[in-house]
């Protein structure tokens, strides 16, 4: 089948499937069937190549930030913003972005891919730059083992033609530097020694009683013996951060919930520097970080009955712990909603790997979701007081809002619980479309 016809067909399918509200990957699937290699061919034409962002935590936020940073420097950026991160999803996004002549009008592609899909993708499209964020206990019931996840990311690193951007503080990610040939450059982002204890790795997590004292990690390697990082998150103070960019200090605002998101900002900045090369204007990139707003479920604030409510997606122990450490419990009315649908992960064992001591002072106002009783049991064994357990999300949400008084609200929730809560909130107030 000839090329233009394939494209027109694909775009037609996309139009038809959007009419009946079909999945965003569907037209991409048709495209790949008709013309395998379509995605690779299109992306290969981009002058600044393809950037792949992968890892277990923070992909969506980091991709969003990277795209915004690059656009602020005048680049035309193609990204897979629909969140369907299969090759097909990329194909579908491509179709949506093409002009009437079938050209992709972009300088660079920045793509969020989860580990398993990234492996598949890089066999077809070799990235120029890959940003590899972390390997945490996420979706282990799907991928099996953390070391398997690391192996997947190693394949991504080895397929990268230009530079891999690595998290210096994650031992499994840092070791990827040894997997690539000399032709592939390595750029690091990292944390100051003062901040490292705020990010315990999974390996440190249950190493006995060390859990109560994350600062006392004997596995710590002093910064002098770690590689130099292009971007170091030096200090955080609520919304403001201090960054060291190639030896120069910069103050920036990163108005996102949680210190882990501020670390993601450092990752996005390090990656942008690689994409832009000598053209990078560091002060203006740092300033642009202040303009970033949260991605879906990453701390977006919804106003309901004149009170702010934050939805915080939790999907693995490290993310949950960081989220808890980011704000004082007494300042919030707190609800936790845990579902165990496929998209959440069927296995809720990971809740036992989260340390909930931070909630002991403030307690938890409401626990909900399919696995509400599991969550309540978990909190009970961490001596955290729970006011109410109500598995039904709608009943729980209404009661939580009514009982929260003047306190701002935050809800830690798994993926499908968040979708349901947003839908319920949508009936009460205006909630931005996903």
């Amino acid at each position: 089948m000839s090329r233009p016809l394939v494209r027109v067909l694909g775009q037609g399918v996309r139009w038809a499937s959007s009419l009946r509200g079909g999945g965003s990957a569907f037209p991409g699937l048709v495209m790949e069937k008709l013309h395998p290699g379509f995605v690779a061919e299109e992306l290969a034409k981009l002058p600044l190549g393809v950037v792949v962002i992968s890892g277990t935590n923070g992909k969506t936020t980091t991709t969003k930030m990277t795209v915004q940073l690059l656009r602020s420097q005048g680049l035309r950026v193609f990204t897979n913003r629909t969140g369907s991160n299969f090759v097909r999803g990329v194909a579908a996004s491509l179709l949506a972005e093409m002009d009437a002549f079938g050209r992709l009008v972009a300088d660079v592609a920045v793509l969020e891919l989860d580990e398993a899909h990234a492996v598949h993708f890089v066999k077809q499209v070799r990235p120029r730059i890959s940003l590899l964020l972390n390997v945490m206990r996420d979706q282990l019931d799907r991928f099996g083992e953390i070391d398997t996840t690391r192996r997947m990311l190693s394949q991504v690193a080895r397929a990268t033609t230009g530079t891999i951007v690595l998290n210096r503080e994650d031992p499994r990610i840092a070791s990827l530097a040894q997997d690539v040939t000399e032709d592939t450059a390595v750029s690091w982002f990292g944390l100051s020694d003062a901040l490292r204890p705020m990010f315990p790795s999974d390996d440190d997590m249950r190493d006995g009683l060390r859990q109560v004292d994350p600062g006392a990690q004997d596995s710590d390697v002093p910064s002098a013996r770690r590689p130099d990082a292009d971007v170091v998150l030096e200090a955080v103070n609520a919304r403001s951060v201090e960054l060291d960019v190639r030896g120069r200090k910069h103050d920036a605002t990163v108005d996102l919930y949680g210190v882990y998101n501020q670390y993601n900002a450092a990752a996005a900045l390090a990656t942008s520097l690689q994409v832009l090369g000598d053209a990078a204007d560091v002060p203006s990139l740092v300033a642009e970080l202040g303009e970033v707003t949260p991605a879906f479920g990453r701390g977006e604030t919804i106003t309901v009955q004149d009170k702010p409510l934050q939805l915080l997606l939790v999907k693995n122990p490290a993310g949950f712990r960081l989220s808890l450490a980011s704000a004082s419990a007494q300042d919030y009315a707190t609800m936790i909603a845990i579902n165990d649908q496929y998209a959440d992960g069927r296995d809720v064992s990971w809740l036992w790997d989260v340390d909930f001591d931070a909630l002991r002072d403030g307690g938890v106002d409401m626990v909900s979701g399919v696995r509400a009783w599991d969550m309540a049991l978990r909190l009970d064994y961490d001596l955290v007081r729970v006011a109410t357990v109500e598995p039904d999300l709608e009943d729980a949400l209404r009661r939580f809002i009514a009982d929260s008084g003047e306190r701002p609200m935050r809800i830690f929730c798994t993926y499908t619980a968040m979708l349901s809560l947003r839908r319920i909130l949508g009936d009460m107030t205006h909630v931005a479309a996903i």
Partner: protein
Amino acid sequence: MAHDTAGALRIVQLYPRDMNIYGDWGNTLTLKRRAERRGLETEIVDYNPGDPWPENADLFVGGGGQDSGQFRVADDLAVVAPRLHEAVARGVPMLAICGLYQLFGHSFRTGTGETLSGIGIFDLETVAGPERLIGNIVTESADLGTIVGYENHSGLTHLGAGQQPLASVVSGAGNNGQDATEGARTANVLGSYLHGSLLPKNPRVADFLLAAALELRGETLPEGELDDTLAQRARDVAASRPR
């Protein structure tokens, strides 16, 4: 608390650095809290490869790991095996989940074809299977009642002729997906593939371990039922969920 002679209840975590995954910490925490809520003091001691052997342990707990962790642990287990066998013979209670359960058997052949030697507390052998057995599981034990949890393992375990299983499978895969057995039990040593964690949602199993530990000290588990409403509700939900 009247334990002047024996001191606090000493819970040894075996290999927490290499073998604790899928919430295995919850087992240790459950033992600790259930002891504390009955007025017993507890002490948690970590044992990692090469550490001095913790003397006077009242209870051992160990969890699952990845293959890489199991290799590190297998060598060390061979060294401390005589001490563990001695403890088993005295009736010291132990809970070995997943990876440690496998190493408490005779051998484990990994997916890459290497064979790890176990220490033979249980008469069983494990071979990595073609696919992981993953999902919610419900089992029934004659001694310990219904046990619910979440299994996640690629090892297929076959019990020797005389080896008692921990429980029989009601729904789920269990030791090998074939013979409807789950786990193993020898003296007061329980081996199981159930994570979840196992003990929080199975208080009867937790109390069995605690009672066995106290019995060796000439004590009994203090009277006064704990309120297990939360655990019971969580069990009911877990048992009703799709695999």
